């Protein structure tokens, strides 16, 4: 009898648990990992970025487009938002080439920094900000991207990055 009553409760808890644990780190990451941008250090670069991890565990940044060129650019009359990552899931077929899924580690309490370069991005007096994807678990995302690439277009492999990471946006600055 006890088994009959407890069974559905335990099953419900098991089903709920992954959602709670998935959502929690993402919220924490968004507040405990800080990204700031400033004018570039290297000549020819567009901006300088700095990512600080205030957690007591390492975090990982989706790295492939972090140094430029941009994965995607969102533009309005007064602002340019540069995405170094996909920011929303967009189901679709695999692209002609899917880049190696590189992650950059930021140790606990550590800061990493670098310059972003993309000659094709024109800011022209507008403010600019940068978005990155930051996640805690580096083990699952590569495998999920591979699975998505074989999903017969139900998911783009890029969706794995969106599911894995918290999307952080930097401060916006005026470059010119």
């Amino acid at each position, binding site marked *: 009898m006890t088994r009959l009553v407890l069974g559905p409760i335990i099953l419900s808890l098991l089903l709920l648990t992954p959602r709670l644990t998935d959502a929690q780190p993402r919220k924490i990451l968004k507040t405990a990992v800080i990204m700031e941008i400033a004018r570039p250090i290297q000549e020819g670069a567009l901006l300088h970025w700095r990512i600080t991890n205030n957690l007591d565990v390492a975090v990982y940044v989706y790295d492939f*487009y972090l140094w430029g060129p941009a994965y995607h650019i969102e533009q309005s009359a007064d602002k340019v938002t540069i995405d170094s990552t996909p920011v929303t899931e967009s189901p679709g*077929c*695999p*692209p002609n080439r899917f*880049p*190696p899924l590189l992650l950059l580690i930021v140790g606990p309490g550590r800061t990493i920094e670098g310059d972003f370069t993309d000659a094709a991005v024109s800011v022209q007096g507008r403010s600019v900000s940068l978005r990155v994807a930051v996640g805690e678990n580096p083990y699952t995302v590569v495998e999920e991207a591979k699975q998505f690439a074989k999903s017969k277009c139900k998911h783009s492999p890029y969706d794995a990055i969106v599911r894995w990471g918290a999307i952080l946006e930097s401060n916006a600055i005026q470059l010119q």
Partner: protein
Amino acid sequence: MNPQSLNKHVYAYNNPLRYIDPDGHEVVLAGSAEDQSEEKKRLLSNASKKGEAALFRTTTDKNGKTNLVLDKAAAANLKGTHSQGYNMLVQTIGSKNTVTVQMSNFDSQTSYQAGNAIASLGRNVAGIDRVAPMRDSVGNIIPNPFGIIAGHEVLGHARLHLLGISDYADGPGSKTFQIENQLRKEQGLPPRPDDVP
């Protein structure tokens, strides 16, 4: 029996004109006039034997759609064997289903709607090619021209879909990889390495 005789591609290569549907002409070039011109240029670079590219032209139908069509009279006068890129393009045009070719602001890809396909071609060199160009096993850069990418998407993924063949993911041994490498060989380019994602 030669098992290759059952292969639709080989069959089509041997007699591609047979696949032309008089009401077909179903390679639609979408977007602005500039986009259409670029799409045509990229596609025709796969008709790589002398004189083949000149056999294609564009027409606008009553609905305002721009179609890539084969000038069949001129084609009949071009003797000899054709490039496989040409044959595959003729077969795609002759399909009763439609491939819509459009420009994309990011990478190139093909998507599918029932029996039809939409091939999106990257407007600029995709980020990945700027950051990590294709390389062979000893590190030499392998050219990845726009025309080859168009061939991969339209003559590979899209055409195969029109033929009822599922080839929705790239990877070593995929049919589209093999087609891309046929096109590369005809154009004197090194093959796409199997380990390039």
